């Protein structure tokens, strides 16, 4: 039996089983994004991957991020992408391949990246358990506190960025005729 890059625990706990299920959803979703010929199916795969990521955050006890992830990614970004796909749907079907001319090189680069990343995760004594979180309310309070204290300038800049992006998107996408 080949040696795995990580030691398998003897019996998975409940959270590990949940994580594995979520991970399978995320992996299948990302594969659909890459491989689906129908672009709308790619978008559905993207939604699955977003849900998977949200589930991973919730397993990691970052509920606020997980819920924000669903709210922003599934609610707004996937919807935007689906709208864009429908507006340009003349490009969806047809005899052309979904991959471009450099997809062979891209595949090699991708596999290399994955291998390198896997190699990097080997050999480092990563912790197997974090410190227990007693009160989830404290995290949310801490986030709010951080956003108006040490991170106030990035926060305001972010608000401006969102405003500019909103206006810019309207200006760019508007039909000038």
């Amino acid at each position: 039996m080949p040696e795995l890059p990580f030691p398998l625990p003897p019996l998975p706990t409940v959270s590990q089983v949940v994580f594995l299920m979520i991970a399978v959803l995320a992996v299948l979703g990302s594969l659909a994004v890459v491989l689906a010929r129908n672009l709308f199916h790619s978008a559905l795969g993207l939604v699955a991957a977003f849900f998977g990521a949200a589930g991973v955050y919730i397993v990691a006890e970052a509920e606020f991020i997980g819920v924000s992830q669903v709210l922003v990614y599934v609610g707004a970004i996937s919807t935007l992408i689906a709208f864009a796909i429908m507006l340009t749907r003349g490009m969806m079907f047809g005899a052309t391949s979904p991959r471009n001319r450099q997809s062979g090189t891209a595949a090699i680069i991708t596999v290399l990246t994955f291998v390198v990343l896997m190699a990097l995760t080997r050999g480092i004594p990563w912790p197997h358990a974090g410190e227990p979180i007693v009160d989830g309310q404290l995290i949310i309070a801490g986030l709010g506190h951080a956003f108006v204290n040490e991170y106030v300038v990035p926060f305001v800049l972010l608000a401006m960025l969102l405003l500019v992006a909103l206006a810019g998107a309207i200006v760019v996408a508007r039909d000038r005729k």
Partner: protein
Amino acid sequence: MNWSDAVIQFQYDLGAPQELSWLVEGITYFVGALILATASLTLALLLIWITRKVISRIQDRIGPNRLGPYGLFQTVADAMKLLSKEDIKPTSSDTVSYAIAPVLAVLGVLMSLAVIPFGAGLIGADLSVGVLYLVALGSIGIMAALMAGWGSNNKYALLAGFRVVAQLLSYEIPMVLAMLAPVLLVGTMSMQGLANAQSLYLGPINLGLGWFIFVLPGAFLIYMIAALAESEQTPFDLLEAESELIAGFHIEYSGMKFAMFFLAQFLNSFFLGAIAVSLFLGGWQGPFAGQVPLLGPIYFLAKTFFVYVVIQWIKGTFPRVRVDQMMQFAWKVLVPSVLTLLLAQMIIMKLPLPMWLNAIFVLVANIVVVVVVLNVLGNYFKREQVRSKRAFEPTSLIGTMQPVHPSSGD
């Protein structure tokens, strides 16, 4: 005491071994979820019956009255009919999204049950982000509408899907901001925490009347309007504008799948009412709810059914708004007013005043915003009324295909 602790303790008392704690917890939550989901599916039948009864009373009819007492089993028969219908799948529809969409629609609605506090200790999971969780579930409904519209391969379904998505996204913003008002007041997003905060102690006795609607009537009003739009109820039921879009994004669905969309819509309006109750109308709080725990769920359900009947009353009385009116109302009326409301509330709550004075100031700010909004709306509808009356005058050119003269004023 939390219900899950009670059930877990019960299993241990029956002789469940301590080593299998994960199995015991799993059984507990599974049974809880099973009861809630099954109950809500049967609840949908009752909701449809209530809707039909209320609307027929408003329209001076009797409504269903043949099957069972007061026609209660009419909806059961209808459900039977829907379930036994042939499941027609349109040719060249997108199979994946066509099949998943109704499941997602029901899933997004049912999942909100997890954080609704039915009583003291009667909550599926008291998440620390409960309010945000409820908001996030709305995006599953958006996805479902989009998938149904796209998957049906029907241009009316697609148009209705676009419309629904635009409506849900627009009204999500005022709804979230209005839900933020009680969160700001209490400083927690946990639904049970919000329900607990709405008590009112007179000495040692909990009167349970510290409802946030008494402090935040403006936020409540805006929430209810946005919730009407979110649950696709009249006056915002544009997605099923029969004259324009036939029946909405679920036009190509039949049988079981159609029943699922139908169910999702009715349950959604009920649950949005339940959220309104737990955020603004005191949740399970009420007189003596602290002393007699059984009163909690009764109060909660009574209030929720009351809100549901009010929603049906609105459904029976209001005309449908136009698409442009719907969008304008969200972005030009609701969002600015709820932002003003929140800003005023934040400033007031930072003032160094005693709590009761703060509450009074917040109430005043709310009333001012409500009055202003109602004024704006009243003027708008008055103008609209004048405009539509003028359309029927003999000199009117509306609908005559004549070029409108620049000086005619219409």
